[in-house]
């Protein structure tokens, strides 16, 4: 489980987050959605320990949370296996070789293990990026826009993989611009607007909250934000 309470963050005069709280249980998949500049990446960065909140707290230290940033954080001149091995060592995994083998197998990159990352496609880089986030078998995993660089096939494989992790008890939080992706995969959504958490619940509940019949989830989401003045 991962719990954040009353997180606030300012960038100069701009309030990026306003007392946002969130609890994600083991085996739960939560999507953070909202317009551009709503504070999605800021919230995930604070949960991951990359950025510090001005106030509020996170229940787990960064070392216990897997983190997959939006831009692949990999060394292009190292091979896939070398990248995984480096981060497994830095994460102090008990059995580095086993952790690397496991992630290569789970992400389907075993055949590309010896290839330099700079030669991989965007989709494959993202798979390595995700694999590094999962090296230490974290109980909570955070992903920032994980499917942005992926084609539909790769996207489908990613979600299949993440669902497997959720089924194994991992708590996953991800941000996305793709509202339909949130509706399709997330158990719950957290809607952020201007740094404020304006909704937490299932996609279905959001549609019911808006109440207009015949609207799909994306339309309901837009209508919800409009009614809230965003």
């Amino acid at each position, binding site marked *: 489980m991962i719990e954040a309470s009353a997180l606030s963050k300012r960038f100069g005069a701009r309030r990026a987050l306003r007392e946002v709280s969130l609890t994600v249980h083991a085996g739960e998949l939560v999507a953070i959605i909202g317009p551009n500049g709503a504070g999605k990446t800021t919230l995930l960065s604070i949960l991951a320990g990359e950025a510090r909140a001005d106030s509020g707290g996170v229940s787990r230290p*960064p070392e216990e949370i897997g*983190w997959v940033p939006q831009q692949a954080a990999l*060394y292009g001149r190292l091979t896939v296996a070398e990248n995984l091995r480096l981060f497994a060592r830095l994460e102090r995994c008990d059995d580095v070789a086993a952790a690397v083998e496991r992630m290569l197998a789970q992400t389907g990159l075993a055949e590309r293990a010896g290839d330099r990352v700079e030669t991989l496609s965007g989709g494959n880089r993202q798979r390595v990026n995700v694999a590094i986030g999962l090296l230490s078998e974290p109980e909570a995993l955070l992903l920032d826009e994980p499917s942005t660089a992926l084609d539909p096939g790769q996207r489908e494989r990613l979600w299949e993989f993440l669902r497997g992790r959720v089924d194994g008890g991992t708590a996953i939080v991800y941000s996305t611009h793709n509202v339909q992706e949130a509706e399709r995969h997330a158990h719950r959504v957290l809607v952020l607007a201007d740094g404020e958490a304006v909704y937490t619940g299932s996609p279905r509940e959001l549609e019911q909250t808006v109440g207009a019949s015949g609207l799909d989830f994306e339309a309901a989401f837009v209508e919800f934000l409009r009614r809230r003045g965003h």
Partner: protein
Amino acid sequence: MRWLLLKDLQILWRSPLLVALLVIYPIVVAVLIGLALSRGPEKPRVAILNEVPAGGEVISLGGEEVDTSLYSQQLFDAVDPVRVDSREEARELVRDGDVLGALILPSDIPFKLQSALEPATVEVLYNAEDPVKAQLVRDTIKSQVQDANAALTRKFTGVALGYLNLVVSGGSSSFLGRDFAVLGLGPAERILAQARASLPPSSPARGQIQEVLDFARLARENLDLSDELLGSVAEPIRVDARAVEGAGSTALSSFAVALAVTVSLMFVTLLLAAGTLALEREENAFRRLVRGLVSRTALLGEKIGLAAACSLLVALVMLAGLALFVELDWSRAPLWAAAAAAGALSFAAMGAAIGALAREVRVASLLAFMVSLPVAFVALVPSGTVSGAIYDTTRVVSALFPFDPALTALGAALDGSGGMLLPLAHLLVLTLAFGAAARLGLRRFD
């Protein structure tokens, strides 16, 4: 941290251009400096037209034969001479750029030297298209003509002193092949004194002889002093050079070696430290690393240590390479290593500060070049070439960067000129200061 170090070494190893640059750069610099120091300066190529007829170079001065070709030979030795047969040919070679200048020795030079009625003149033609080369030709020929002038003046002075000696002490000489005896002031004085003594005391001639005797004594005594006076005229100004600053001053070759190594040390270290730190940001890995995997200070220490170790190795290889051309005192090798290590650490801290400012490796490299070049130039401005205020400013600016103390420390380590402690302490302070600046700069990475 060792895994990060291993990773950086792997990345370096897989960057062939960078590794080639790191290996080739110091080798090329070492070879160039070594060749420059071992070959000495190139002689300017100068056309020579000698219109003095064969055998006419010998002149007679005070009964002594003087071969003027010996003096002209000195001049020819200072240049790379190209013999020509006419003024037109000399002009053409200069105009076409085949030679930097032409020197014409007119046929009347021996006559004018012998008669001493008017100065002998040599003509110099030069190509003024390139002011540096033109200056080189002018300076070389002027310097050699001055040397020849000084040598001839000494010869003239010797002849004049011989004549004066003859007048004072008497003796024999020859003129136009005829030998003749000269009485001299001293013997004349003695003869007059005897003649005066033989006259009766009341003789009016005694007073007149006494007057002549007084004049002869006065003339002899003053002419006795004239050899020193003529010696002064022959060489009115002598140079007595003493170093008042930087006692035991660094030898030119040691300075050149220290300069070559320091410049390489600066570029290699700055580029490595700035580049490897900026790479963490460019690859988006920095944030992933510092969220609990490694501290910012440890990351900084790893980059500084890696850059300093690599450049220290390069510096030591360079020194070993330069030792093939220049004699270096190997018993001082531990001091070289200490000076190079202190310089490398300081440059690495500065490079890390530059890397902390940049978001990309290319920007970091460009910044490193843009900062290091003026720093090196400013540190090399010699006193007396600019106004006092500007020089003081250059000293202050130089003190803020590691180049100047690193150069001083390495120069002192190479040949023992001056102390090493002060520049080493200076480098330590700069390492801490730039390290702190780099640590502060890492906040920009957040």
